């Protein structure tokens, strides 16, 4: 009973923080906007610069940060629970590098310049293809190690192809465009990106929904989980597709944003008593919170142009990762 209460308290606290940070995100930017006036302008339909900034720039940016962050956090929690490994990240099944490759292909061949949606669509297709490759390489009944190895191989290959395209890029301008996109940023998102992000994200979330129990059972190992009624091939299939859709959509719109999927579930796990099913919703909220916060930070940093949000999350994430390893080492010895 007490455990259940504290669980809802955590979800409530995280939800309130997300709501508060989202409000803050609406108010943050190079142009200070009076919120009431902006709201009045956007609701009354009168054209005013404040209303436009709010509805065309700040709101899409905030919502994309929220959805993409939630997908990364949830994807991390799903993968770590599926692979029974706290160091697994959502990119492990190929979705992130596949999305990067797909997006870079559209940039390289100039498709992205021809019509705006080519880039995110290319990213999602890339994510799905890469995940499918991992899935086919590993086989339907693969063990965890085979899955991880197949993921590593496909990731390496996708990133090699990205490097090749950078290498062969026709102009320095194209190189810069690709490189900057790879850093991960929410600066240029508009409503179009939001509409691109939404369907895959929601479909993926729906698929992950109700898989919590099976992930709980996996705590006992694959064979025991199977004997307790978990349908592991189906679980694996669903989660792969869910992560490909959610993380693929997120990466396609924002570029590569590292470490959220790794760090957030790991931080929250002790707070939910290490139970995989109870980690899912808090991880999604935590991911949204972290990406929103990072995106506010980059807007406040005094810099020429804007520091990319993917750089900030990795700058925080990498030392944290190191700290995790050191902690683990201490626990073993």
């Amino acid at each position, binding site marked *: 009973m007490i455990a259940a209460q504290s669980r809802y308290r955590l979800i409530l606290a995280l939800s309130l923080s997300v709501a508060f940070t989202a409000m803050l995100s609406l108010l943050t930017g190079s142009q200070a906007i009076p919120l009431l006036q902006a709201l009045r302008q956007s609701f009354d339909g009168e054209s005013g610069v404040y209303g436009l900034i709010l509805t065309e720039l700040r709101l899409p940016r905030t919502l994309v940060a929220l959805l993409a962050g939630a997908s990364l956090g949830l994807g991390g929690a799903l993968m770590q629970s599926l692979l029974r490994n706290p160091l697994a990240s959502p990119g492990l099944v190929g979705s992130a590098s596949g999305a990067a490759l797909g997006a870079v292909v559209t940039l390289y061949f100039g498709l992205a310049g021809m019509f705006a949606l080519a880039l995110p669509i290319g990213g999602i297709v890339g994510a799905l293809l890469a995940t499918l490759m991992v899935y086919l390489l590993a086989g339907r009944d693969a063990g965890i190690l085979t899955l991880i190895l197949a993921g590593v191989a496909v990731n390496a290959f996708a990133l090699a192809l990205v490097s090749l395209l950078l290498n062969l890029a026709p102009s320095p301008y194209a190189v810069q465009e690709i490189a900057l996109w790879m850093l991960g940023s929410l600066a240029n998102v508009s409503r179009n990106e939001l509409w691109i992000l939404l369907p895959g994200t929601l479909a993926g979330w729906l698929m992950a929904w*109700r898989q919590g129990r099976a992930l709980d059972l996996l705590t*006992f*190992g694959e*064979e*025991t989980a*199977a*004997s307790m*009624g978990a349908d592991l091939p189906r679980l694996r299939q669903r989660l792969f597709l869910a992560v490909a859709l959610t993380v693929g959509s997120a990466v396609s719109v924002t570029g590569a944003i590292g470490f959220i999927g790794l760090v957030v579930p790991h931080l929250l796990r002790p707070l939910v008593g290490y*139970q995989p099913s109870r980690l899912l919703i808090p991880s999604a909220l935590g991911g949204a919170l972290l990406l929103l916060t990072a995106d506010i930070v980059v807007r406040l940093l005094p810099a020429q142009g804007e520091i990319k949000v993917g750089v900030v999350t990795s700058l925080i994430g990498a030392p944290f990762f190191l700290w995790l390893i050191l902690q683990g080492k201490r626990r073993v010895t």
Partner: protein
Amino acid sequence: MNLLRGESLSVNRQGRPILTAVDITLKCGEMLGLIGPNGAGKSTLLRLLAGVIEADEGILSLEDNPVSAITHRERARRIAYLPQLSEIAWPMSVERLVELGRIPHLDPWQHPGPQDRAIIERVIARTDLQPFRRRAFNTLSGGEQARVVLARALVTEPNILLADEPVSALDPAHQLDVMTLLSEHCQAGQSVIVVLHDLSLAAHYCHRLQLLHQGATLAVGSAEAVLTPGNLKTAYAIAINQTAEETLSPFRLPWRRLS
């Protein structure tokens, strides 16, 4: 009625036969001991019965229905499987781990109700886990961990409990405790198949023994009928010491539990 019945079960791995035409039956309230040397196919047979692997040949039926006609969930409610090694992925508390044993009876996202709670409390009390219930699994001793995974299987309230060497890592007193818990499970009209290496324990606690050797059944029946000098020689390449034979029966345990 046979609770569980397997006919000419065969399993091959990479062209090598692991089990060849093994028959097995289990009656209500029965404790069946699976014995045999290492590599005889005991664990494979147990995993087969648990539904973790599938037979290449043979028919397996549960309460006279073919297992293939039963859903994963239904089977999970009736059969609980305790593997030889329990690797728990996360440092969850004992209470939470035991609670997960009720999952086969719950819908997704449904929380355990008062009835489930009562069962969980009863099993925690019976397995003496009350003092450890809030501790993390990885901080427990081997004997305590063995009791936690047994409790997890017991809260499922399975008709059939399949236990693979549940006592191999335990001291004599805890071995007796675990075997007593399994016996109590049988007294409630439910059944147990247990893989054992300790022949005295097997002879003392099991109603029937099935001796496997090189993937086939060498003998099945009462302890006296199965543990004959000839069978022991064929399966294990051992003989019973003369002195033991004279002073005390090899089928009787040389010790008992003090309360």
